[in-house]
């Protein structure tokens, strides 16, 4: 047996936790029963690894056998779903005596969790539960928005510890459509679905043109229109966009006051990369007078299908192409709630 194969097997063994060792080796099905019985699981891992390597040498393990061992390890992984569930439930029950936790396993290694929150002294409120979907082979969990905000840190902690991670970070990405959130977070949105009949889309396009070719109508800016279509396609692609309802931008800007001596109004010009905003107030200033703290501005875009709406802006002649990167970066950055400080 090769030196490199021996080393590879040794290192793979070292990666397996002791609790899973026998399961993995049995699933690998390379070493015989008798050989497995000779292994002492109480010894230190590096000595165990050495013993396994020796046994593999006896059987002349090849590279493909070693590769198979690696695959088996990945499959059994470090994640045990039942362990997660019991750990999660225990953490919540220890913190709040009254809490109802239910689980349902779904496809794609998804665990659906329902939590009804109570307190030390009150029974859980079954009418305001929080739902969490945890994808066990990914570091992502999706939670429904909870009215009972005080429980969110506890929920985060329970998820983190039960899933054996160190830290949980809240993403600035919110939507009512779980599939869209999944598409964005798992980067699955940029897939073309028109595989069945590749000629069909072309036909649709030419039919559209037929309606317009009354020869008495001439489009002067055809070149520009094509350019806008091209830029839109490069930015948004040909695929259906994930479904979001909002994009929110919070701006902080140090106030710059300009006064013109003749006119009795003070006006404040607030330029940022995004929108030109003007504030005006009368002589006494109001909220603009002698301002120390920076101005805060919140801009919210809402739509039944925000990304499709943004995609149609330039072709419809409502905005210039290319759009601001603050709008187009939403799926690629996985956020639709932004905080922007103007320096």
């Amino acid at each position, binding site marked *: 047996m090769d030196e490199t194969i021996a080393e590879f097997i040794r290192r793979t063994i070292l990666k397996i936790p002791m609790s899973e060792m026998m399961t993995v080796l049995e699933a690998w099905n390379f070493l015989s029963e008798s050989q497995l019985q000779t292994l002492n699981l109480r010894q230190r891992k590096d000595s165990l690894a050495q013993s396994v390597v020796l046994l593999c040498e006896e059987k002349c393990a090849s590279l493909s056998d070693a590769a198979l061992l690696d695959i088996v390890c990945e499959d059994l992984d470090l994640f045990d779903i039942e362990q997660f569930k019991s750990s999660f439930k225990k953490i919540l029950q220890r913190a709040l005596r009254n809490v109802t936790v239910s689980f349902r396993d779904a496809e794609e290694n998804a665990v659906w969790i329902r939590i009804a929150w109570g307190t030390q002294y009150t029974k859980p409120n079954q009418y305001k539960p929080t739902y969490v979907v945890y994808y066990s082979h990914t570091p992502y969990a999706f939670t429904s928005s909870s009215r009972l905000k005080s429980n969110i840190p506890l929920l985060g902690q329970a998820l983190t510890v039960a899933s054996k991670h160190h830290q949980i970070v809240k993403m600035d990405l919110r939507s009512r459509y779980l599939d869209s959130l999944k598409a964005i977070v798992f980067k699955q949105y940029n897939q073309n679905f028109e595989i069945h009949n590749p000629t069909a889309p072309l036909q649709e396009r030419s039919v559209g043109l037929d309606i317009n070719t009354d020869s008495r109508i001439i489009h002067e800016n055809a*070149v520009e229109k094509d350019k806008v279509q091209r830029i839109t396609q490069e930015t948004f692609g040909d695929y259906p966009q994930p479904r979001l309802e909002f994009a929110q931008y919070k701006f902080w800007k140090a106030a710059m006051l300009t006064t013109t001596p003749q006119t009795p109004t003070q006006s404040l010009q607030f330029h940022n990369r995004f929108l030109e905003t003007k504030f005006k107030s009368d002589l006494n200033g109001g909220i603009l007078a002698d301002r120390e703290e920076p101005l805060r501005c919140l801009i919210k875009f809402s739509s039944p299908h925000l990304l499709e709406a943004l995609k149609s802006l330039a072709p419809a*002649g409502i905005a210039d192409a290319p759009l601001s990167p603050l709008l187009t970066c939403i799926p690629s950055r996985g956020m639709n709630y932004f905080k922007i400080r103007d320096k």
Partner: protein
Amino acid sequence: MSVLRPLDKLPGLNTATVLLVGADDALLQRLADSMLKTDCASELRVHLARSLPLPSNVNRPRVDLLVFVINLHSKYSLQSVEKSLHHVDASFFLGKACFLATGAGRENLCSVHRNTIVRLARTYRSPVLFCDLEVEGSRAAMAQRLARMLQISAGHVPGVSAMSLLSLLRSSESPSLEDL
């Protein structure tokens, strides 16, 4: 060659060409379709442009009527038209140009005030027309009106010129021209 001039070409026989300028392509298309459906003795041609100047390498007929279409729901639409106005020769504004504002009916969607367009039209001494291009009936009526104006601007109506039409339209507006 970036300025559009009204009389730099010879007219075509019994042909009248209107150039619709506006950012909202779908609305222009619908207006063009409506105009071509009208019953008109002259042969109509409709050119659609998002903005001026027009591409210079194209052979196109003389423009008899210039219509600036502004969607009151879109500030971008107004800005686009304002930029395009710089590329128009002043003699167009002697009756061969007009402004068309659409969408005034739905006030909650308007981001441009109708007075802005009224003032813009007064600055250019040209008529302003209001309609709702998204409504079939309003659009058809406007299309007929524009077709008639187009015929006059192209000189197909004996006894009426573009200038005389302009003065006829103006007298119905507020008389004080200093009121800008």
